[in-house]
């Protein structure tokens, strides 16, 4: 067994017992990145020197008995989370040279916990996409099949975790961007409740939907990471001021007496792949066998989630991305001789096609004469989607269904038709619109050997029950240790 293969909780035990050093662990992960990342292209920046320095500091803290809960644990960070002194690009040409002067709140929390960042990982530009093919820099490949996408937008995070190029990672999820790549790569991913994790220092895409969360090798690791990054931060005006449970301590994997809601709309969908259906139904059977009660529920506005999302998210994006003007930071077209020309030239050359498409769509949806028909209508449908969940959680504790309608698709398969790409987000968008937590846990493989995730959604701030239910699935499936050959 190589050190890079360890989970966070396994590594933590060995570090505490001083059977391994944090420096050895970090060196092992850095060597793994060197050995396999030319195949997967997950990393945009590797911070080897600072990682070694942080690992040495962790070894001292461990020796001195002052180690935090993630002391010496090598992590990968999605490249839209600000890291002081380390380039943060959002996989966009417009931020290709941006070096943040401050750390995101989650980076401060990871630092305090003793974590070691080994690098920044690839994504769809500004988190807009479902395949990581919208990166301005490179395509990340799915480690299970290098001709396929890793999912997106946190595709670099998911690929780095499953290829053992880090022990865990942070991603962000605006419409499924943690859960869908977690499902496609066979790792655990959580989108926390809106407001659970501070967005301070997260480069904004759609502010009422964005949330940072962990991608991890198993459920226990996801719970540990969540505990570290969650909590109130006064610098995020939407941060929830309520205590963070000890997610790790609450894990028992016992679903006896728990009620699992199965939404008919998630299984009647036309485009659902038979292998996905079989794997998800198998996981639900396992929950039943373990003592859970499964009931049929309805989320009647599910068919409208894609339409509502692709008005609300682009509308918010068109406003958020107005800040990229070539003045304070980011790319500037130096040839323009007047200010307004400079704005237009810099933005047109700096943003990629999908980002421009969403800015135009969002600007249109908010423009005079169309606001009521598009943005306001979508915001009303959002209320109905929230009501669907409120009604469902009167009857059940957890909702279970697929994460994505198909396993990972091929590189290039959906890039020509944006709408087809958007429709692949159908099962994940609702949790963002409603603000509830959602988790993806591996539950099987397709006939061609691609991982499939089960989605579990919970009521507001009920992350603990998601982890516990996911642990039951993880134990029943017995596939958490499976890794692609690279």
């Amino acid at each position, binding site marked *: 067994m190589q050190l890079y293969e360890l989970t966070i909780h396994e590594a933590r035990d060995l570090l505490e017992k001083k059977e391994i050093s944090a420096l050895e662990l970090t060196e092992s992960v850095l060597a793994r990145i060197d050995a396999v990342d030319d195949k997967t292209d997950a990393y945009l920046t590797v911070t080897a020197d600072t990682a070694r320095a942080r690992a040495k500091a962790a070894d001292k803290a461990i020796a001195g008995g002052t180690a935090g809960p993630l002391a010496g644990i090598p992590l990968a960070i999605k490249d839209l989370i600000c890291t002081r002194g380390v380039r943060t690009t959002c996989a966009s040409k417009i931020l290709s040279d941006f070096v943040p002067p401050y750390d995101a709140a989650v980076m401060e929390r990871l630092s305090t916990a003793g974590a070691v960042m080994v690098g920044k990982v690839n994504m769809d530009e500004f988190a807009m996409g479902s395949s990581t093919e919208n990166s301005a820099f490179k395509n990340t490949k799915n480690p299970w099949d290098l001709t396929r996408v890793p999912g997106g937008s946190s595709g670099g995070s998911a690929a780095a975790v499953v290829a053992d190029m880090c022990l865990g990672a942070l991603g962000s999820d605006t419409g499924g961007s943690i859960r869908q790549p977690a499902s496609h790569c066979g790792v655990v991913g959580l989108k926390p409740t809106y407001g659970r994790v501070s967005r301070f220092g997260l480069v904004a895409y759609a502010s009422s939907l964005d949330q940072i969360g962990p991608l991890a090798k198993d459920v226990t690791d996801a719970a540990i990471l969540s505990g570290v990054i969650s909590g109130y931060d006064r610098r995020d*005006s939407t941060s929830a001021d309520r205590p963070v449970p000890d997610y790790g301590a609450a894990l028992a994997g016992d679903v006896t007496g728990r009620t699992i809601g199965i939404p008919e709309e998630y299984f009647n969908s036309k485009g659902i792949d038979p292998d996905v259906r079989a794997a998800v139904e198998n996981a639900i059977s396992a929950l039943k066998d373990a003592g859970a009660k499964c009931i049929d529920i309805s989320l009647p506005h599910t068919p409208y989630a894609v339409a509502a999302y692709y008005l609300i998210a682009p509308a918010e994006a068109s406003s958020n991305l107005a800040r990229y003007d070539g003045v304070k*930071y980011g790319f500037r077209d130096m040839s323009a001789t007047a200010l307004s020309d400079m704005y237009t030239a810099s933005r047109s050359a700096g943003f990629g096609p999908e980002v*421009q*498409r969403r*800015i135009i769509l969002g600007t*249109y949806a908010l423009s005079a004469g169309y606001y009521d028909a598009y943005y306001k209508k979508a915001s*009303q449908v959002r209320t109905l989607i929230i009501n669907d969940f409120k009604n469902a959680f009167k009857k059940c504790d957890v909702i279970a269904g697929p994460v994505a309608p198909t396993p990972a698709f091929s590189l290039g398969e959906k890039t020509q038709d944006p*709408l087809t790409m958007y429709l692949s987000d159908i099962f994940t968008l609702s949790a963002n619109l409603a603000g509830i937590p959602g988790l993806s846990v591996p539950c099987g493989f397709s006939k061609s050997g691609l991982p499939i995730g089960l989605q579990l959604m919970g009521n507001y701030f009920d992350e603990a029950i998601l982890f516990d239910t996911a642990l039951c699935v993880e134990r029943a499936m017995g596939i958490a240790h499976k890794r692609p050959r690279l």
Partner: protein
Amino acid sequence: MKITRDEVIHVAALARLCVAGDDIDRMADQVGDILSYVETLSRVDTTGVPPTAHAIDINNAFRDDTPGRHLDNAGALANAPEAEDGLFVVPRII
């Protein structure tokens, strides 16, 4: 086509983007497809339904107005494409 070439050019200009050449038709087709698709929302009766801007009950978040440490001038200018004498430099405005 749900959106015309001229509308694409106009909306892009509102967002300080320049769409030119073949990209105008491609953008009109793609945005038009999406706008046709989102028409499905018109099937939902939303009479009397309040719009949601935020999914969680959020009230105004106030804090005390106390001085604190913030980014210094050099830090604020460090990423500027062009800076001089502690200020951002931009091309002529009028």
